[in-house]
């Protein structure tokens, strides 16, 4: 009996190109590392643990199909033909989740609805100009990365999808890459989620580098009272959703999901809130992580554009972080030095991670300083500005063709 044919996961390693073999082994090890780092909470565990498992399993579980073709029984991300899809749906175990929830952006919309349910608009509505100014400055990476990506040889669609990593919002990256560069959505989305997970480690250094210790510990002095009622937030969510859908219909699914989440939170329907927050959001995040991992098979991920994407991801998130802190400084000077510029980092979105990072860095200097509420306002505003920019990119880029 041919042992290599019996144990096909190993057998396929012997017939594939050396580049793919090295890629598969590396991805198995990276998958294991992601699970370990997720469990240790160095990386975001909610996404990284299922993603790591999926990544290891898909690269280990390769087998021979007809005519020595190598594949797996988990998923085929690139199938487009209807008849082939019907066959594959019956063979590949996770294909139905991918086809009916992932590739049509349903998961992105559910995660966005969940973000809406956990978002409190009080500080955004009490300080709309401050929050918007910080959030729009924190989109700098999204703008700077686009021409750099084009100069590196990416098509406008691919460049825009890579640039949206700077918006620091996973569902938006998934949504835009599927719309603008479906051929690259796997590497772009995987890189985006990996880098977003690394924000926990990188942004504190950026804050310490750009904001002096005496400014980091300062309290925000304001005379404005934050007394926004649930009714006011509910009305805003309906009006803003309608107006933004009129302006940017390309981003309507995401806008609807986000504002619907907010409306459900503010309407106080506990059963809906629990259903979306406890069930939908966690289920969608789990399957999102798992799908991202399963999509990381060596044949798909070893795309020649992966290196530029790795560089562009760092540029996008780094420049957005710097832009956010610049926004924090602008508000600091406008408010006669009564504002903590550290809050600027929260404008990068990535709710609630960046707001927590800002609070952590401030508390490390002065424990009694609480800025989390202002940071959450800027962070939620970051989600909105990222959605606006994504909507503009998705509308404008196809016009260039």
């Amino acid at each position, binding site marked *: 009996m041919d042992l290599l044919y019996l144990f096909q996961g190993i057998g396929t390693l012997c017939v594939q190109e050396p580049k793919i073999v090295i890629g598969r082994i590396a991805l198995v090890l990276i998958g294991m590392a992601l699970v370990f780092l997720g469990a240790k909470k160095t990386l975001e565990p909610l996404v990284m643990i299922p993603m790591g498992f999926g990544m290891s399993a898909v690269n280990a579980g390769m087998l021979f199909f007809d005519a020595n073709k190598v594949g797996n029984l988990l998923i085929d991300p690139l199938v487009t033909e209807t008849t082939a899809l019907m066959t594959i749906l019956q063979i590949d175990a996770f294909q139905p989740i991918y086809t009916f929830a992932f590739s049509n952006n349903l998961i992105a919309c559910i995660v966005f609805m969940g973000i809406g349910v956990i978002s409190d608009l009080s500080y955004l509505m009490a300080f709309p100009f401050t929050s918007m100014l910080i959030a729009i400055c924190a989109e700098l990476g999204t703008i700077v990365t686009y*021409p750099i990506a084009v100069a590196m040889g990416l098509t406008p669609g691919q460049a825009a999808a890579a640039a949206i990593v700077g918006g620091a919002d996973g569902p938006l990256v998934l949504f835009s890459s599927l719309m603008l560069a479906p051929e690259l959505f796997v590497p772009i989305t995987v890189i985006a989620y990996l880098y977003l997970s690394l924000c926990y480690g990188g942004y504190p250094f950026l804050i310490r580098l750009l904001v002096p210790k005496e400014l980091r510990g300062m309290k925000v002095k304001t005379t404005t009272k934050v007394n926004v009622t649930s009714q*006011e937030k509910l*009305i805003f969510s309906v009006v803003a959703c309608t*107006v933004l859908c009129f*302006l*940017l219909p390309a981003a309507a699914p995401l806008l609807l999901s986000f504002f619907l989440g907010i409306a459900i939170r503010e309407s106080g329907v506990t059963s809906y809130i629990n259903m979306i927050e406890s069930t939908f959001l966690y289920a969608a995040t789990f399957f999102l992580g798992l799908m991202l991992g399963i999509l990381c098979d060596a044949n798909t991920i070893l795309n020649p554009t992966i290196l530029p994407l790795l560089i562009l991801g760092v540029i996008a998130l780094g420049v957005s972080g710097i832009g956010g802190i610049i926004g924090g400084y602008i508000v600091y000077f406008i408010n006669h030095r009564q504002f903590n510029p550290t809050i600027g980092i929260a404008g990068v979105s990535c709710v609630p991670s960046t707001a927590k990072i800002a609070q952590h860095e401030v508390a490390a200097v002065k424990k009694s300083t609480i800025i989390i509420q202002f940071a959450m306002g800027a962070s939620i505003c970051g989600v909105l*500005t990222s959605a606006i920019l994504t909507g503009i990119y998705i509308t404008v880029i196809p016009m260039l063709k």
Partner: protein
Amino acid sequence: MQSISLALQIYGLSFIIAFLVAVMIKGLLFSIRHFSRDTSEKQ
């Protein structure tokens, strides 16, 4: 050069929309509070 110009235009447009959303928030809050005060005064 064309891509830089496009990126700047997109940034400008998003800045305007974000500013409009901020104005809309202020306008909505003002109207809601104004009309709810009117209603409570009449009662």
